[in-house]
């Protein structure tokens, strides 16, 4: 019994304390380094933050280059898939186009009327200058659904700015470096956005799931949420301008957590628009 305990201790000591051939540090000392990094990082220690920003700049660029071959395969795979779905998509697009043309006629009038009414309530927000950014990498890790863009503090990007793919909301800027930034996607588990569901004007919170869909949470009117309802930002909390389209309800069941299909395909983002919304008075 004593001998087996000794063997265990010897094996552990040898594994963690002994420097192997061509090893400059023992395992234990590097484990201590990692723990120190973790603790100082959680305390927002400046040196660690600078180190992180430095690594970010190098790694994001390197990651973009290293991901090249995989992205090439991925793009070709998606291209082939798109070709296979082309006929069906075309048929759907035709019917959608007819519907949208008729809808568009009344939209312009509603938009101008809406602007006029919001000005009366002093609620009208204007867009800051739009910054176009290229997506350097989209890391669908189990921990974070985010994209890295090639614009940073040098290009006036700041924390909390929003990212859109065309007219659709994609996410918010959560990390800004000098030449790059990270956008947390709406599909991330930690993303919570105040939204409104039309046509029934149901206010709720859209939460990411870590998958390619979102869910509706914290609403008292689940029975009023119908399949096909459109989700827009509600503007509550002044985080976003009201009325930015996000997605639509894609489940008809009466369960509390409704499944939301995003309008934008986050796996195929190439470019995004970054901007913030300012109060009308603040702008002028």
């Amino acid at each position, binding site marked *: 019994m004593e001998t087996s305990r000794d*063997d265990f201790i010897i094996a552990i000591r040898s594994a963690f304390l002994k420097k192997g051939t061509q090893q400059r540090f023992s395992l234990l000392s*590097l*484990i201590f380094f*990692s723990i120190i990094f*973790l603790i100082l990082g959680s305390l927002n220690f400046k040196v660690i933050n600078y180190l*992180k920003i430095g690594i970010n700049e190098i790694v994001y660029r*390197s*990651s973009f280059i290293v991901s090249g071959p995989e992205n090439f395969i991925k793009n070709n795979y998606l291209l082939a898939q798109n070709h296979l779905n082309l006929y069906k998509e075309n048929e759907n697009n035709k019917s959608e186009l007819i519907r949208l043309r008729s809808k568009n006629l009344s939209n312009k009038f509603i938009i101008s009327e809406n602007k006029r009414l919001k000005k009366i309530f002093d609620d009208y927000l204007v867009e800051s200058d739009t910054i176009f950014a290229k997506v350097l990498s989209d*890391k669908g*890790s189990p921990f974070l659904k985010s994209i890295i863009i090639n614009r940073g503090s040098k290009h006036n990007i700041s924390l909390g700015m929003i990212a859109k793919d065309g007219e659709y909301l994609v996410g918010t800027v959560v990390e800004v470096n000098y030449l790059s930034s990270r956008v947390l996607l709406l599909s991330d588990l930690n993303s919570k956005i105040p939204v409104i569901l039309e046509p029934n004007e149901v206010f709720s919170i859209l939460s990411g799931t870590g998958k390619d869909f979102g869910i509706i949470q914290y609403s008292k009117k689940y029975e009023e949420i119908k399949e096909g309802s459109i989700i827009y930002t509600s503007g509550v909390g002044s985080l976003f301008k009201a009325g930015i389209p996000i997605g639509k309800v894609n489940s008809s069941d009466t369960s509390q957590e409704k499944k939301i299909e995003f309008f934008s395909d986050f796996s195929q983002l190439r470019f995004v628009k970054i901007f913030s919304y300012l109060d009308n008075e603040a702008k002028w």
Partner: protein
Amino acid sequence: MVEFRNKNLINKIFLQIPLILLFISVLNNHDFNYLGLKYFSFNFSYILIFYYSLKKSESLGYIYIFIAGLINDVVIGTPIGLSSLMYLMLCGAAAYLRNITLRPSLIKDCIFFLITILIINSLLFIILNYIFSYQLYYFDQIINIIYTFLLYFLFSNLFDFFEDKLVGRINAR
């Protein structure tokens, strides 16, 4: 003379392939999301680090593994130092197994690998969830662990083949 130099260079590149693979895997973060497979994810870095720490500990230096962990943290957005800690604990487990093993076998390695990744992923889950308030899906973690474990068989054989047939042959010349 030129031929000798070329051989030497090729030899050096072959010896560095595990390290190159490690850095590519942390920079690229292979996820195969675009295939649309609902329940599929695995951690290639874990397999690579465990295999090479167990079988060829001189191929991957601890300091490189530490740096790879820092890079991985930056790429996937976890607190800096966390992946390094997990990778080094994996190295420690592999080194312990190497020290206590008299007759190596793939099955024993795999079982030890499974126990190790279960422990380090639990630790990762606890640290991220309770200290840094990250929300994680327990089910996704389990899927990741199962596929990492299953694919260890495949990659272990591939690495054996690579080491025996390619690196071994070049060294023998």
